[in-house]
């Protein structure tokens, strides 16, 4: 929508301008609220902490509302995810400079389960994967390095296209493809190790 001469219009017809803002807030609410579970899920995987994830999601929604007027598509979910990712990166940076949190930051399910011992022999190519429950899969994914974890979550849990993932993580599609390939190999190795550890 062209914005030429908008300030003059606002002065001339304040009713329309106010209506515009409310309309925008309503459209944001309609678009963003149904995605709350998705955004929260991504935050949980990226931050591996329930409280931090809640804070990040709230911050993400407020930032997104503030910038909604400049949103031009194409898809809303990747746009919202990119904002969340920025918020989470800021949180990571804060943790890195705050030694107390960095040390105490080990209460989430992600941090448990350091294997006591691990099968080292090569796994046969055709080995069937056992089905795990959500808690186990969340833990296996959470143990991946951040860049690989992010790739797995955006693709395997949120089913985004490579293009959308590339936009969110601000990397070329080729990088997304190689990260995802590496991430799946690592996850599969962890998966196999997990099922060998279990009776």
């Amino acid at each position, binding site marked *: 929508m062209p914005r030429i001469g908008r300030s003059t219009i606002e002065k001339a017809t304040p009713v329309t301008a106010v209506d515009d803002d409310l309309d925008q807030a309503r459209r944001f609410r309609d678009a963003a609220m149904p995605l709350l*579970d998705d955004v929260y899920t991504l935050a949980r995987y990226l931050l591996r902490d329930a409280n931090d994830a809640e804070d990040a999601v709230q911050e993400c929604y*407020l930032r997104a509302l503030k910038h909604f007027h400049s949103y031009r598509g194409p898809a809303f979910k990747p746009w919202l995810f990119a904002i969340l990712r920025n918020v989470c990166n800021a949180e990571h940076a804060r943790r890195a400079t705050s030694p107390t949190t960095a040390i105490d930051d080990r209460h989430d399910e992600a941090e448990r389960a350091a294997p006591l011992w691990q099968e080292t022999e090569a796994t046969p190519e055709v080995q069937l994967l056992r089905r795990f429950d959500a808690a186990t899969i969340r833990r296996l994914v959470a143990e991946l390095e951040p860049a690989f974890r992010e790739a797995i979550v955006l693709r395997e849990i949120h089913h985004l296209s490579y293009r959308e993932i590339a936009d969110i993580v601000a990397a070329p599609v080729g990088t997304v493809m190689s990260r995802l390939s590496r991430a799946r190999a690592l996850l599969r190795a962890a998966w196999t190790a997990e099922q060998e550890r279990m009776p």
Partner: protein
Amino acid sequence: MTCDEAEILLHALLDGELDASHSREVEAHLETCPRCAAQLRAYRDMTSAIVASEPHFAAPSALRQRIAAALPQPQPRAASRRAVLKGFAFGSALSAMAATGIVVMVLRADDEQRIMSEVVSAHLRSLQAGHLTDVLSSDQHTVKPWFNGRLDVSPPVIDLTAQGFTLIGGRLDYVDGRAIGAIVYRRRIHVINLFVAQTASSERQASKIETVQGFNIRRWRDRGLNFWAVSDVAADELSEFGDKFESAMRTANPG
């Protein structure tokens, strides 16, 4: 193709991201290389095991409430843009003859945008838990009669399951202040809402694809009905849906 190349490309194949010629190359390699073929099977298996485990988290309701409270509250639209423009158009009698034509055109374009925006809002509301369907059935002979008596005109309900779009039910919705039929389809994990409303114009209007708030809308008019198909599926898939619906409608009721 070497195994090293295939090892990366088979992920793109699995994710449906490869173009036809690369797909053929990878598939040709897989036919001759049992090791890479086993890799693909294992990754496909892993992908479906992840989905089956339902690894999503549900946002705590306290968070939902906190965010809803932090967003500006929705308010009744006291003075819509249409009302403002109408007042302007009818109020300035002197320039009425000159202005009316232009204002009517402005109103029409604005109305279409507003209705599409409402259609997207209705689509989004439908995605919230428990709002998708009023009548849940994959049988068109159950869904169609359900609309009788609830709407002035019963919308055409066409089962496109065989064409890759599963009919999952129907719903009564409100767009532009009036009741409207919504026929609900599923494409993989995506929902397609097909909104159908009666219109005064019997003139056929060819389909148009547009994007509103990140959702694709394919709209067309046929036999006195306006159609809006809304979804987050890709534009070409939504076109395919519309084409199949239109052609099935022609077959079912020629002329």
